[in-house]
Each structure stands twice: as structure tokens, then as C-alpha cells.
């Protein structure tokens, strides 16, 4: 597979959220606004790319049977880095993403790519894969966040699109996350066909 297809498949055809349904928890949990979605997406992308890189580099030195724990350590380290950096430089985003930053560790997407791709491929394509998947993930989260923000409060990235008395609170709250994701998946399925 060329690097280009490795990169683009994550965007739509194998979009981690809409098609592969990976990492549903952060997907639903943090997307109250487009900005949160984007932030979470980028944080995940960072972890994804870095851990893919490191894992593809060290994969030769790891005995098969401790593969998973080693990957977890690597991933968890990058998550902690993100956590610390965010606390230092983006404290308000960190606050709104809350619990879901440490939970990047268990995001199936990250470990899944490590297992399925980085542990079998060279460093460059692993990075590209991580980047593609990460951007696909960020894109999905941003779209979801934007949709919820727009429907829920009439805003988009905090900008006023229509009067907020038209906002339907439900979409900011838990049920709205499920609804919007459900119908977005429906739409993406239609497009992919």
C-alpha cells in the first residue's frame, strides 16, 4: 500500500469513528463543541503518531508475549506527556476534556493501530498511518462536535450561527451525542456506498 492510500483511507473509507467505530467513548464524551472535538482529536493524533513511530522502531526488540504490555507503556507515556503539556499550556481545554485525556490509553484506536499496523510496518508508513487515522479521528470528532454545538446552542467553534434560543439543549447533553453520532454514521454509510 502506498503511503498516500495509507494516509487517505483513514479519512473516509476506514474512518476510525464512522466506519470502524473505534474509541467511541471519547467520541461521544467530549464532543460538546467543535473545539473540544478538535482538541481531543489532535491530542489523540499526537499520541497515535508518536506511539506508532516508537513502536515501529522498537518492535524488533520486544518478545511477542510482552508485546501488548510494552505497547501500553509506550502509549501511556505519551498520554502522560500530552496530559502534562495540556495542563501547562492549555489548561481550560484540559479541564473540559477532563477524564478523557488519560483515557486515550484505552482508546482502541491507538492500541489497535499499534497492534495492527505499527508492529508490522516501517517507521515512515507507521507515522503516515497514525497521521491518517488521527486526522480521520479528529475530523470525525470535529464534525460531531460542530453538529452538536450548532444544534445545541446555535454556535460553531464558538461563533454565533443562529440565535441561541433555537438551540436544542438535548444535543449538548448525553442523549444528543448518541443521536448525532447515530445519524452521522447513517449518512457516512450512505456516502461510502
Amino acid at each position, binding site marked *: 500500500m502506498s503511503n498516500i492510500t495509507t494516509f487517505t483511507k483513514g479519512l473516509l473509507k476506514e474512518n476510525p469513528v464512522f466506519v470502524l467505530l473505534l474509541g467511541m467513548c471519547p467520541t461521544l464524551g467530549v464532543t460538546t463543541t467543535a473545539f473540544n472535538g478538535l482538541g481531543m482529536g489532535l491530542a489523540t493524533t499526537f499520541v497515535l503518531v508518536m506511539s506508532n513511530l516508537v513502536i515501529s522502531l522498537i518492535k524488533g526488540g520486544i518478545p511477542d508475549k510482552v508485546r501488548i504490555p510494552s505497547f501500553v507503556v509506550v502509549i501511556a507515556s505519551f498520554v502522560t506527556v500530552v496530559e502534562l503539556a495540556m495542563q501547562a499550556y492549555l489548561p481550560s481545554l484540559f479541564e473540559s476534556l477532563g477524564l478523557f485525556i488519560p483515557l486515550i490509553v484505552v482508546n482502541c484506536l491507538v492500541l489497535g493501530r499499534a497492534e495492527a499496523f505499527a508492529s508490522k510496518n516501517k517507521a515512515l508508513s507507521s507515522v503516515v498511518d497514525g497521521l491518517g487515522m488521527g486526522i480521520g479521528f479528529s475530523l470525525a470528532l470535529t464534525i460531531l462536535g460542530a453538529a452538536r454545538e450548532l444544534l445545541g446552542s446555535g454556535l460553531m467553534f464558538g461563533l454565533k450561527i443562529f440565535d441561541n434560543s433555537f438551540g*436544542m*439543549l438535548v444535543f449538548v447533553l448525553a442523549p444528543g451525542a448518541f443521536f448525532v453520532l447515530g445519524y452521522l454514521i447513517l449518512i457516512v454509510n450512505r456516502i461510502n456506498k
Partner: protein
Amino acid sequence: MSKLLNVSPSPHVAGSYSVQKIMYGVVFALMPTLAASVYFFGFGAIIVTLVSVISCVLFEFLIQKYILKSEVKIYDGSAVLTGLILAFNLPSNLPVWIIILGAFFAIAVGKMSFGGLGQNVFNPAIAGRVFLLISFPVQMTSWPKPMGFATKYVDAITGATPLGKMKEGIMNSQSVSDIMMQLPSQIDNFLGYMGGSMGEVSAIALLLGFAYMLLRKIITWHIPVTIFATVFVFQGVLNIVDSATYAPPVFHLLTGGLMLGAIFMATDMVTSPMTHKGMVIYSIGIGVITVLIRNFGAYPEGISFAILIMNAIVPIINKYAKPKRFGEVINNG
């Protein structure tokens, strides 16, 4: 003989029930309630009802025709009924666009996403209502005072519901009896002279409808009566334990959407259990959750949520509350 004979498996005769007859039967049973709400809330009631019914039917039509591309079945009356019941769950001064959104949610998400009549697991009208309640809490909780045709559609003078006032009062640590003094009398509650959603105010009109549906065998007594009994007993116990913070059971029976919910919403066949045993379990659940929410929750009103929650349990009830099979006892014994 020129004409060909029809051949089909038995039975060759069919009873007189039909989906349409049942649905329009319920619509008819709701007429006293409609009359009462028009009497109490004037033009607003008419507008809300019309908008809700028309948009429910229209959305159903559009979805069936253009999205699902299936047969159009708006004549079966279920969309009309959903519209009517949704309307009865709304304040009579709700802006038109909100009503339309609610109708859209009820039909598109609550019903057609599952495939239409008979497929849905949650009561569509309640889904629409709860959706609006959560989305537009402001508009959904300002009820106009019942002033007949003097009630203006927009900018009506708003008054709280008895339940709302009760909750408010209890939060301010007033005692129940003090609050009751400021509220309409039980007779008014029974007749419907109080603030609230359009269809829920007049207990008598709702009971008339109940009687009609029982007579026509559209529904059985199990669900409404069990709900009433559960609420009465549970609230009664609370009231006995602490009559200063827990209102008397009759008050709870007559106020809020309890009657409307128990008689017309919990009984929705699609979303309620199939067997009588199941219905009783379901109704006890509704009663208990309603009382819990009303007394301890954030909402003064709880039956919609209670029905919605119990709707979710219906498949499990159906799975385990099987009818008693003929010949089963002996088999086991």
C-alpha cells in the same frame, strides 16, 4: 364459472378489529380532553393541536414517501394519534416552531427510525415531549393560566402547575398543607381548572375517554388501574410517613400528566407489554418511578420519564413474563 375462487389457509373469517378502528377509537376517546383544553386554554389549544397533528402526519408522509420509499400509510391514524397526544403534553402557548421540532423528533427519531408503526420501542409522543422538555425547558415549563378564550396564544399570563408549585414550596421548606392552601381545590383539579399541559388538566375528561376505550375493548384496565393503585399506595405511604413534605396521594393522582399518561400514553400497545402479567409489572414500574421523580427528582412531573424508562424494559418483560401455557402446570408438577 368465470370467476376464480380465492384460496387461503384458514381461518376464513376475521374479527372486527382493525388498526384504523383502534387508532381512531383512541382519537375519539381523546375528544373530551380536547374539548376541555379548548375550553380552558382557548385558541392556543386549537393552534397547538392542529400544528402538532398536521406536522406529525406530514413528517410521516414525507419520510415514508421520500426517505424510506415505502408505502404511505398515514391513514392508519397512528400519526394523528401521536400528534394529538404530543399536543396534549405541551403548554398551550408553545411557539409553533418548537411544536414542529417536537413533532419531527417524535416521528423521525421516535418512530420512523425504527421502521414505522409497530416497530418502535419508545413511545414516540413521549419521546417528542421529553426531547422538547430537555431542549426548551423555558418554553416547555411556562404554562398559561386557564382562562378560556381569554387566554392569549403568545404572551399569555403564565402560571405554574400545581405540581410545580408544590415542588417549589417544598424546596422552600413550606409544609404541604400550607402549599395546598394556595393551590386549586381538588375539585378544580378534577375538572381541570389549573395550569399545565393542554391535555393533562381535566381528569374527568380523561376518565371519560378511559371508560370509552374500556367499553370498546381497545385497551384493558390493567395498565391505568395498576398505575393509579401504585401511585396511590406509594405516595400514601410517603404521606403517612411525613405528611409535611409528601403531598397526599389524591393530589398526585389528579395533577400533572398522571391521568393522561396512565390512560393514553402508558397504554400505547406498541410500547407496552403483551401479557397482562407483564402489563402489571410495567405499570408498577411506572407508578414507582413517577412517584420517585415527583418527590425526589429535579422535575416536578415524572410520568413521561417513567413511561419512557419502562418502555426500555418492555422487551425484557415480554421475554420473561410469558403467558401461562396450557398444560404447563401438569408438565412441571
